[in-house]
């Protein structure tokens, strides 16, 4: 009996060594696979009755640092949130421009003032008047472009929400399905590690959209919650998000007006503001951009546009213009009204009367917007008045500005500064979140496959295999010896 027991022990050793080599090869093959959790075989002594009978593989363990992964996912969500804000704000900032850049709103205001001053020197020169009109048109189009950039950011955010919701819905469905497959595999006594790798990859895909918390429910099952506590998946049925993208967005379309869709969670509205259960990821950032950040910048731009238009309406003594008529700048041709302020920056135009492009004549800049015929060629009072209207200290009638009177150029710089300051702080926060995500990913990957270590394991396996084979050879020789008697 003992010789056959020896043979059996050696065979079990060979078996364990073969399983070990298989695991090593699996690990080495997946050394560069994202989401792959390193495998280890669990070996124990085989017991028959009360006596030991060789070794056996009791299972394959999948190793993953769940703490590092969880922290990494939260950092990734924060990173996605802040980078989305920073990118969008940078886009608006670029459209508004910094004062030293020629195409910025500030530079356009300075241009208008300069050309008006130059026109006072030679009011009879058509070229001088035309360049002042060109500068005015340039300023209007700079404001239009900034307003368009703000609305583009809102449209992109709206589209990003739709894509994000789609990703979350399909992702949660797949995770729920994988949960089911893992339960069946474990129930049947199979190795579910590959399914778990796949599930981890699926969960990672959603990490940027929502701050996720993964909770182990035993039997290989996981539940998903947001960091704020909203249940996404616990059990069989995943949560269901609904959202209707708007396509084209204009400044007057808001969540409150009903023109834009909110987010529905399981058929009920999910508030997305500050302190929302879903806050802290790209999804929440897109909502913030669409519904608060971009509209507040639009409001400032509109206030700037209104201040600009009102300066020329109220501060310039132009007798040729009727009361209530628009000044040098119009709301798409009409008078600028406080009630229509929303979106004004996008509709601001130069008065048609002075703009040769719209069939007007530049001399009206000198003689008055309502003048029927050119007046004295050397008249400068109105031109001086126009230039002075730009620098005159005036308190803006609207917008989120500190109280106090200031020139138009300062007001424009304040709008640019407020966007720049918000962008810089989002940039800094994205930097911190990025560093944190990087550190957590580093910790996670350090626990991943190390080929050197796998090769060391392989050498041990090789040695064990050789030794067991040697035992079989010895047993064979012993049996031959007996058979040869």
């Amino acid at each position, binding site marked *: 009996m003992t010789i056959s027991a020896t043979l059996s022990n050696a065979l079990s050793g060979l078996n364990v060594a073969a399983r070990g080599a298989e695991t090593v090869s699996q690990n080495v093959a997946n050394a560069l696979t994202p989401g792959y959790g390193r495998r280890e075989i669990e070996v124990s002594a085989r017991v028959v009755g009360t006596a030991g009978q060789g070794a056996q593989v009791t299972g394959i363990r999948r190793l993953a640092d769940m703490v590092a992964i969880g922290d990494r996912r939260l950092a990734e969500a924060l990173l996605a949130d802040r980078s989305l804000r920073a990118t969008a704000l940078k886009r608006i900032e670029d459209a508004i421009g910094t004062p030293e850049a020629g195409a910025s709103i500030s530079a356009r205001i300075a241009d208008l003032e300069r050309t008006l001053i130059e026109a006072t020197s030679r009011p009879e020169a058509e070229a001088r008047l035309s360049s002042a009109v060109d500068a005015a048109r340039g300023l209007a189009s700079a404001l239009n472009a900034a307003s368009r950039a703000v609305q583009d950011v809102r449209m992109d955010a709206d589209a990003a929400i739709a894509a994000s919701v789609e990703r979350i819905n399909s992702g949660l469905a797949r995770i729920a399905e994988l949960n089911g497959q893992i339960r069946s595999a474990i129930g049947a006594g199979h190795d579910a590690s590959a399914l778990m790798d796949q599930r981890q990859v699926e969960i990672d895909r959603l990490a940027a959209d929502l701050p996720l918390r993964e909770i182990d429910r035993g039997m290989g099952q996981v539940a998903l919650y947001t960091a704020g506590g909203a249940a996404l998946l616990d059990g069989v049925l995943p949560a269901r998000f609904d959202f209707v993208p708007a396509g084209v967005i204009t400044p007057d379309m808001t969540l409150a007006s009903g023109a834009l869709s909110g987010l529905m969670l399981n058929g009920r509205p999910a508030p997305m503001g500050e302190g929302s259960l879903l806050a802290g990821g790209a999804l929440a950032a897109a909502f913030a951009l669409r519904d608060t950040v971009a509209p507040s910048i639009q409001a400032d731009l509109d206030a700037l546009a209104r201040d600009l238009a009102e300066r020329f309406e109220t501060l310039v003594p132009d007798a040729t213009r009727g009361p209530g008529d628009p000044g040098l700048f119009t709301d798409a041709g009409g008078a600028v009204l406080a009630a229509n302020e929303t979106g004004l920056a996008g509709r601001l135009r130069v008065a048609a009367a002075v703009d040769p492009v719209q069939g007007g004549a530049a001399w009206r800049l000198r003689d008055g917007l309502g003048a029927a015929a050119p007046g004295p060629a050397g008249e400068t009072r109105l031109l*001086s008045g126009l230039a002075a209207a730009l620098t005159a200290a005036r308190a803006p009638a609207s917008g989120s500005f500190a109280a106090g009177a200031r020139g138009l150029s300062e007001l424009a710089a304040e709008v640019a500064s407020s966007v720049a300051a918000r962008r810089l702080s989002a940039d800094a926060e994205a930097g911190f979140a990025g560093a944190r995500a990087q550190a957590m990913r580093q910790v996670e990957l350090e626990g991943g496959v190390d080929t050197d270590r796998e*090769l060391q394991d392989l050498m041990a396996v090789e040695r064990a295999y050789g030794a067991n084979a040697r035992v079989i050879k010895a047993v064979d020789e012993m049996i031959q010896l007996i058979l040869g008697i």
Partner: protein
Amino acid sequence: MLRTGFGDLAQTLQTRHQTATIKAAAQRLGTEMTTGRPVDTPAALRGDLVPLAGIEAALSRLAGYGAVTAEAALFAEGMQAALERVNDGAMAVSSLLLASGSAAASAMIAPAAREATSAFEAAVAALNTRLGDRSLFAGVATDGPALAPARDILDAIALAAAAETTAAGVEAAVGAWFADPAGFAAQFLGGAPRAPLLLSSEDTATLAVTALDPALRDTLASLALGALIDRGTPPLPDAERGALAQRAGERLLAGQTARAELQAAVGTQEGRIAAAARRNTAETAALEIARAGLLSVDPADTATRLQATQTQLETLYAVTVRLSRLSLADFLR
């Protein structure tokens, strides 16, 4: 924590991240080195763009005022030259008329009167001077001449004084014509005086002298007296012609003070324009220095940091190569 391995991916990730970070820094420093400006202006200003916008707006405004002062100086100079010509003509004619007016030299009256006519024409031409596309003494109507042609003016004066028979009568009639809104003022084709011109945020210059200025009007009236003698309308006896020539000469001489004052007034404005231009230039220089203080990057500092970044990147490459060579697989034979 018990560490039994160091994942292959961790090392790659770290190297990749470090390479990206250092390369981005090198790129930024390189751009700043070549342009001399920070890549991210708002970041360099800590998000406060108001001071920079103020400086840029002021610089742009000063560029505008630069054009204004340069042109205003040119116009003032043109006016000064025209006034000089009027005065020179008047002084030359004045001495001739005074000499001819004395009883002994009645033969000199005719040439002196001829001189007066041409001086009158020269004065009108001087007041109609155009500099580029701008008429200097026509007030706001800068696109046309200030006065009607000299012949037409003299015709109108002759008509007004046609019935006079004495020197005093002619002088009174001419004086009345020049004071009459339907007289000389009707020959003035210009407009209202020009508004003061802004030379900077505070300074103004007033180049409002028109051909209607009393000093110029009086000079023209005195020259016209001489010109009437030349025309022979109204026909006067010799004694009266002598008296008229004498009177015209005296008036031209007496008018010199008013003309000098007018020239001095324009000269004062020229001084103001020059001073404003100087102040504007100084302010521009100061603002440019302030802007450089806000926006420029220190080349020495940037170069040093670029050097350090380069060294860092080279070290990283060397370490990467070393680490990637360190593999157990290479030693298993």
